[in-house]
């Protein structure tokens, strides 16, 4: 009862209130309140996630498992960021009477330093690295073996050229009356007609999928989010 039925009742009631709030304006306040609670619980979930990360890496270090040194680096950077962020190290508040009122990421603070010189370069370069892997994977996987693959490749080629100066330059000799035949013109058609139609159908499909899944969860048909009994 407490482990399975009661959680489902919470799901059903809160979900129905959220839906009802859309149709019954006086309930909108409840929706806002639930939204704020949701954010608080999400913040608590960050704590659970952080504690899990800490425990897992600590276990690895204490067991001296392979790569424990990297776990030590992770833990060190985690703890340092957490401490300087929570204690607003280096933050100067606008009002001297409220030294804690300054923004946690004010320019010159320790958290700002970590964001500017560690977090941002690391995340930016990590995603930039994907440029090489996307290109390499595409080179290996994309072959114009059939009509569909050829269409995909051609569309990608046209859009890539159409959105850069090279595409404009390559078809600059085409008269204005036939601008649809230039790379930027063809890109506009691909994006305006084919891409819009495809994205629209995908979005309609996703919306129906989300609605169906939500209904299954609210009606208790799908209770996989509760995990197994042993959890």
């Amino acid at each position, binding site marked *: 009862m407490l482990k399975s039925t009661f959680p489902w009742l919470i799901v059903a009631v809160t979900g129905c209130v959220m839906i009802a709030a859309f149709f019954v304006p006086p309930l909108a306040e409840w929706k806002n309140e639930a939204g704020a609670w949701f954010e608080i619980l999400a913040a608590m979930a960050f704590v659970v996630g952080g504690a899990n990360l800490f425990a897992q890496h600590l276990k690895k270090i204490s067991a001296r498992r392979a790569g424990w040194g990297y776990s030590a680096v992770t833990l060190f950077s985690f703890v340092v960021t957490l401490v300087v962020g929570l204690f607003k190290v280096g933050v100067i508040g606008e009002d001297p009477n409220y030294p804690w009122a300054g923004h946690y990421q004010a320019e010159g603070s320790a*958290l700002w330093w970590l964001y500017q*010189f560690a977090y941002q370069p690391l995340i930016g370069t990590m995603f930039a690295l994907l440029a090489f892997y996307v290109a390499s994977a595409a080179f290996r996987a994309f072959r114009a073996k059939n009509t569909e693959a050829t269409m995909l490749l051609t569309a990608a080629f046209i859009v890539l050229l159409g959105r850069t100066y090279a595409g404009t330059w390559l078809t600059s000799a085409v008269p204005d009356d036939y601008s649809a035949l230039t790379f930027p013109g063809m890109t506009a058609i691909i994006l305006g007609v084919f*891409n819009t139609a495809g994205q629209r159908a995908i979005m309609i499909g996703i919306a129906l999928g989300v609605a169906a899944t939500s209904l299954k969860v609210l009606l208790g048909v799908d209770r996989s989010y509760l995990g197994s009994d042993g959890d």
Partner: protein
Amino acid sequence: MKRETIIWTVLFVAGGLFLVVRGTQSDHGLGRQYVKQVRVNPQSATDLRVKFKEAPPTDRQAQLSIPRTVGLWVAAFFTLAILSFLYRDNIFYKIAESVMVGVSAAWYMVTAGFWEAIIPKLLANLAPETIGSWALPDLLKPKPPDPKLLSLVPLVLGIMLLCRLLPRGGWIGRWPLAFIVGVFAGIRMIGFLEADFVSQIRSSIIPLVVMTDAGRVNLWASLRNTGLVFGVLACLAYFFFSVEHRGLVGRLARVGVWYLMITFGASFAFTVMGRIALLAGRITFLFDDWLWLIDPAGKRWGP
């Protein structure tokens, strides 16, 4: 010594020598950040506190900032360390990766978790006077609000969520989890149906024959709209699995696949362009901010 080790040693030594020569022999050196002092409250006669703001080296008041210069070199190291993975997995990449995991996990906990949610949305409701006099002085204006005891509910649910960390009694964490799932399912269901389902259908109900102001048929706009509506129907036919894809439906679904392939091609192109833009940003950082080999924005004295 292995041949590979020799090559890397030579490369590192050459890179180091370049940095030393560039730093000592060029007119302006490299990899430094400058700041200038500004008053926190310029209007106040009593508050004489100062803070540092980034300044171009050409500014008369600019002074070298050791923490920011160290930061610049750390950022350059991390950038090169991540890029080194292009060669193969190595110790520098692994260190950078470990730092990224630690910093990003804590950064989200501190920002989105603590300072953006727990303090203003939970503790400020439960103890507005205390929080107002500590970290949120705006709460005290014009007068602090009354404590909102209803906020005890998310506090209790939050503590229950933390029970997931306990070796036994982790099931208690299912209740707040159920709340999260319920709210998310309810909001998302309506949100998707309204913003995606209905609005996308509404946007697709457009005239197939478009007339100009002069009362003539606008052929291009008509073709465009027809292609769009037909494409949406064809793609939906492909997604509709309750009917066997044979005959007319099959042919329509096949055209839908073609539309989808062009869509995926365009998405792929955008993904590649986005990543290339990020890469260009990092390369600019290395050559401009760190090595001072270029100065496209004219931030310094030039390269």
